[in-house]
């Protein structure tokens, strides 16, 4: 069966990603020349600590979501299209791995488009017909973003004559006050910001995540935005360097403003949603705001907070969307009004939702607390106490929308409670093959919230390394 092949591939790549991360931690950068052609004439694949970390994130989410997918898609994707879903999934994984691993800017563009095209295809496999319009809208906006990225690459190539990231850094040093390079930075930043849904450019995200099949939402919400934020880090730090981007152009103020608007508008809009998947989508927009907030603080702690939130949010959102997948599998609906008292029939699923929700809010002992902690620390380092309050206010808003779901599903009683004969056979816990991957992620949430050594160490090393590019 197709699923076994795809499962073997995704777990195989996870093992490779893990080994690569260990190797980079011990030995430093790994460099590979594609086809034996040395850089800068050929395309090189370069793994440093930031790369390897993001690769690990994508690989683990890819493998765990694929384990979850087998039962989940039986309910959500038409049977004659299931093989197409698996194909698009693997293509998407390929594209994301390629973006993360490559050291050549144009190669990055090609892989960005590979992963984007397969995600448009996956979103359009959703059951409701609104999925098609959501996929179409995402296609238009995503392609505009990628084309802006291409224009930026074109200008950089015109000024320096090279496409290799390391080589671009060397050659761009003297050229930084030319109008072409400044324009290139503008196009690259706006293009990639469209792709990871930074605040004013987020219009495609709510519909895309709501109407896609649950597996697709879980996968896309946890990986694509993280990978594109990684691309942003690569461009801003490894190509242009901190002096140009943040001192001369003052991009950090723009990011700070966008991030704060994202956090508040995302969280407040999430509170009013009846469709839980749409609520989680708006919550994702807010969380992307947290990551960009960390990056805009341009300090070791700030960057560390941003990078570690890449990992933390991936496991939180994947767990939350997988809970919705379990609920949809049994109850055929993700509207909050249809799900009164669901907790009674699906205790394990709702317990997972509660723990992942606490992590999203940032309660101590969970992984979400670590990112919020470092964000607040970074704000206090700069004596920006108002920013620390803003971060905490965002968490308070998250409490509201998570609590809404918990109250309706776990505290209100099910309509079938008073009429035991109305209880239908489908109203029981989700199957084990869906619960186990979900709980692996939930336990990861708690484990990495308590034992933070590995993730914080890797994130700190990446932050210090990125800030080394003056």
């Amino acid at each position, binding site marked *: 069966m197709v699923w076994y092949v795809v499962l073997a591939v995704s777990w195989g790549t996870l093992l490779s990603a893990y080994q690569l991360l260990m190797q980079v931690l011990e030995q430093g950068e790994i460099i590979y020349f594609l086809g034996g052609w040395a850089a800068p004439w050929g395309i090189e694949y370069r793994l440093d600590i930031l790369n390897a970390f993001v690769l690990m994130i994508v690989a683990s989410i890819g493998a765990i979501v694929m384990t979850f997918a087998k039962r989940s898609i039986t309910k959500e994707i038409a049977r004659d299209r299931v093989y197409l879903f698996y194909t698009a999934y693997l293509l998407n994984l390929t594209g994301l791995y390629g973006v993360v691993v490559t050291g050549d800017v144009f190669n990055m*563009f090609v892989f960005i488009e590979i992963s984007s095209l397969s995600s448009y295809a996956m979103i359009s496999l959703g059951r409701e017909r609104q999925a*098609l*319009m959501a996929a179409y809208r995402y*296609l238009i906006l995503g*392609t*505009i973003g990628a*084309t802006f990225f291409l224009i930026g690459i074109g200008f950089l*190539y015109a000024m320096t004559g090279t496409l290799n990231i390391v080589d671009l850094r060397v050659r761009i040093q003297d050229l930084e006050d030319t109008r072409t390079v400044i324009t290139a930075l503008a196009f690259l930043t706006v293009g990639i910001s469209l792709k990871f849904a930074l605040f004013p450019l987020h219009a495609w995200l709510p519909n895309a995540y709501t109407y896609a099949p649950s597996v697709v939402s879980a996968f896309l919400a946890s990986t694509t935005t993280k990978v594109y934020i990684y691309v942003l880090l690569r461009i801003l730090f490894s190509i242009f360097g901190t002096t140009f981007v943040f001192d001369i152009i003052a991009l950090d103020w723009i990011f700070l403003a966008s991030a704060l608007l994202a956090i508040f508008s995302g969280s407040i809009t999430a509170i009013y949603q009846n469709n839980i998947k749409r609520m989680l989508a708006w919550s994702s927009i807010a969380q992307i705001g947290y990551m960009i907030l960390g990056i805009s603080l341009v300090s070791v702690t700030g960057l560390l907070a941003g990078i570690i939130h890449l990992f933390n949010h991936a496991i939180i959102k994947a767990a939350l969307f997988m809970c919705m997948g379990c609920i949809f599998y049994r109850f055929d609906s993700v509207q909050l009004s249809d799900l009164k008292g669901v907790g009674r029939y699906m205790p394990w699923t709702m317990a997972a939702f509660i723990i992942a929700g606490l992590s999203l809010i940032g309660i101590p002992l969970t992984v979400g607390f670590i990112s919020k902690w470092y964000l607040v620390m970074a704000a206090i380092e700069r004596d920006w106490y108002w920013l620390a309050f803003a971060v905490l206010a965002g968490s308070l808003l998250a409490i509201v929308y998570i609590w809404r779901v918990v109250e309706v599903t776990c505290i209100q009683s099910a309509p079938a409670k008073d009429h035991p004969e109305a209880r239908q056979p489908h109203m029981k816990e989700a199957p084990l093959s869906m619960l186990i991957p979900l709980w692996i992620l939930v336990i990861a949430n708690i484990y990495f919230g308590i034992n933070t050594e590995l993730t914080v160490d890797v994130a700190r090393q990446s932050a210090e390394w990125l800030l080394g590019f003056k």
Partner: protein
Amino acid sequence: MDYILGQYNYWVVIVLMMIGFYIVIAHGNLVKKLIGLNIFQVSVFILFISLGYLKGGTAPIYSEAYTAYASPLPHVLILTAIVVGISTTALGLAIVVRIHKSYGSIEEDKIHMMDQDS
């Protein structure tokens, strides 16, 4: 005058880019939006190719008569980008076909109204 006529290519790029972008934003017909997206991408291709032009250069095949060879790299990049553009258009049109099957219309405002009613 030389500024306008000498940089003729780049003016065309700007005009095409704005036309393409305007079509994407202003038109409600889904197929027209895709056409606008294509025009937008074509303008970027023309930009790259114009950047790759070398005055007095020839194709990069060794010949006794020439000393300047134009780099093939921008052209290769554009070929790749054209293929990416084709895939995007094909996927977009496939989605439009399915939208037409589901909604019976490919006008964005009619589709929006149908979604509001349901």
